């Protein structure tokens, strides 16, 4: 147990370099309701909120949903449909599949027979060689797409080669890369894979400027960061493509974006990819199947249908942090591709959440306990106009709704605060003064509590509604 947790700590500290902090997304405080008033035994013994959270997580959680394969509904359940389905199987496996293998083989022959001479004979003509290699990689990717009858619709202007820009896309499978590469030879940053994919990575894809790394190697991170900086400066380099989620998600959700791509100080061009699941689920569940099996599955289906949107390039706003910028871009992609956002780090697939998150909950619990203990002999104090306002803010449903919806739309604490200020002034002007007189007199500690609640509890509320929206109908 101990060594295990040590390992987790070590691992998480290694990953921390690139990982966006959950704290930056989660509001301070936990979703455990902060009750008011004097501390009593039953408040201490009542651990039901924490237990409910735990049971809720056991029964259903938004994180696992992100990585759940959703195979298409079987339609061969009925006697009349079954023979037709059988015909389909025969066509798919015995006609389409061999034809596709043939196409792919031809593709490889053409590719290799021209790539090898280009690569070795044109050593002196770097520019020409680069250009030829680029179009050859695009060609082989087109063959790949053809091998699963890829019906891809590209929307928006094609990317051009320019320094100081980086493309970011949501990630469902390695075929995202092939689909995008077919149009433009991107240089991509990807996890180093074993097997034949790894061989391709280190030979051919290296030539278009792709950068490979090992997720768990912290040394790799520095190297990658340096390579990244060098790459975007070069005017002749292929446009850079980053999948900031860092892992494949099932195309229904987006997990948090790693902030690395947003810290480079260049224009970020979002790319949204949405697969149509009518024939096959394009999500590569790397835990359950190898990439080869995934490709075979695609090659034996009728077609892979997908939409690609090249979206409006975005720049970091003055005063915006990299994380806020990343969230803004994530918003744009999620809206366009119709994905739900969840406040999780995709790397949690490979590691346990760091103890920090639990500590946060413990901290808010302890603070509330200690505060309420002090409150023991709290007596009522003079009414203060500010107390009245924050009290109203606490109880007024419109402000809560407003904050919740605002936070739903843009999930960042910053904007939440802004809207909170807004609602504060709004409630104040419209209804507060008359009501303030009617309210019972709050104590100073309630004031501090009210302040805390007005920042954290509303944010928690908003987070919860976000989680709910993502995870569907449970809890509450």
């Amino acid at each position, binding site marked *: 147990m101990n060594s295990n947790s040590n390992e987790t700590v070590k691992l998480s500290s290694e990953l921390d370099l690139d990982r966006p902090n959950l704290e930056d997304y989660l509001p301070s405080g936990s979703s455990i309701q902060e009750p008011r008033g004097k501390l009593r*035994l039953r408040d201490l013994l009542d651990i*039901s909120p924490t*237990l409910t959270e735990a049971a809720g997580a056991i029964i259903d959680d938004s994180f696992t949903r992100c990585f759940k394969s959703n195979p298409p509904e079987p339609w061969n359940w009925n006697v009349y449909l079954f023979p037709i389905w059988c015909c389909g199987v025969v066509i798919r496996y015995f006609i389409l599949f061999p034809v596709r293998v043939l196409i792919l083989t031809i593709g490889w022959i053409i590719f290799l027979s021209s790539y090898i001479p280009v690569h070795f004979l044109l050593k002196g003509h770097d520019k020409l060689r680069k250009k030829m290699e680029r179009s050859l990689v695009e060609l082989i990717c087109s063959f790949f797409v053809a091998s699963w009858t890829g019906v891809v619709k590209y929307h928006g202007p094609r990317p051009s080669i320019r320094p100081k820009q980086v493309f970011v896309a949501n990630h469902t499978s390695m075929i995202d890369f092939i689909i995008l590469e077919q149009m433009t030879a991107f240089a991509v940053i990807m996890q180093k894979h074993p097997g034949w994919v790894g061989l391709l990575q280190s030979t051919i894809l290296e030539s278009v400027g792709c950068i490979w790394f090992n997720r768990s190697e912290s040394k790799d991170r520095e190297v990658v960061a340096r390579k990244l900086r060098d790459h975007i400066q070069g005017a002749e380099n292929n446009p850079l493509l980053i999948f900031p989620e860092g892992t494949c998600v099932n195309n229904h959700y987006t997990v948090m974006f790693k902030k690395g791509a947003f810290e480079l100080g260049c224009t970020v061009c979002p790319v949204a990819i949405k697969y149509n699941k009518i024939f096959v689920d394009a999500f590569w569940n790397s835990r359950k199947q190898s990439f080869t099996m995934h490709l075979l599955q695609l090659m034996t289906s009728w077609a892979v249908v997908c939409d690609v949107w090249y979206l409006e390039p975005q720049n970091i706003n003055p005063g915006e942090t990299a994380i806020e910028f990343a969230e803004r871009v994530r918003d744009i992609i999620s809206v366009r591709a119709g994905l739900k956002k969840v406040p999780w780090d995709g790397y949690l697939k490979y590691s*346990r959440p760091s103890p920090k998150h639990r500590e946060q909950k413990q901290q808010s619990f302890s603070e509330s306990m200690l505060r309420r203990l002090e409150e023991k002999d709290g007596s009522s104090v003079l009414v203060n106009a500010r107390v009245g306002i924050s009290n109203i803010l606490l109880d007024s449903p419109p402000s809560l709704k407003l904050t919740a919806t605002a936070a739903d739309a843009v999930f960042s604490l910053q904007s939440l605060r802004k809207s909170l200020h807004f609602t504060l002034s709004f409630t104040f002007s419209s209804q507060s003064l008359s009501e303030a007189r009617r309210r019972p007199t709050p104590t100073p500690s309630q004031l501090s509590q009210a302040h805390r609640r007005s920042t954290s509890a509303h944010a928690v509320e908003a987070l919860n509604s976000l989680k709910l929206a993502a995870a569907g109908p449970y809890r*509450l």
Partner: protein
Amino acid sequence: MGSASSVLTQYDIEEVQEHCSNLFSQQEIVSLYQRFCQLDRNAKGFISADEFLSVPEFAMNPLSQRLLKMVDGLNFKDFVAFLSAFSGKATTQQKIEFIFKVYDSDNNGKVSFNDILEVLRDLSGSFMSDEQREKVLRQVLQEAGYSKESYLMLDDFIKVLSRSGLKMEVEVPVD
């Protein structure tokens, strides 16, 4: 039972329903079974501690280690029985019994000062000192008419907790 593809028969469902005193509907049990199979990755018939911890929301819970001791290695029937306290149909008494079990880690039917202190330690971590925790606990116990030496029985828990409206419900998603 075991692999994700296997389907529960009506008999299975009724058996499980009986085991959890009919607190879940048949559809809810089917949903729970799907979830069980999803968490039980290599179809062992139970969910290991590691698999529970792979759910980050659970792993982040301050009481997760304590709950793990209760759920580790449960088969599906007991898994459902464990969760039945969170059903909307469960009575307050059943919910309080569950809370009592969480406190009573050595299963001796009574909760001592130290048992409560340990739960408090899980909940507050390093943000409260041992003295602070003891002070808080001694104080509230005294106010409620107990002392440091007294043991709390299930009846005491019922007396203390039943008045406050316990909100301990988790809806099982049914598709």
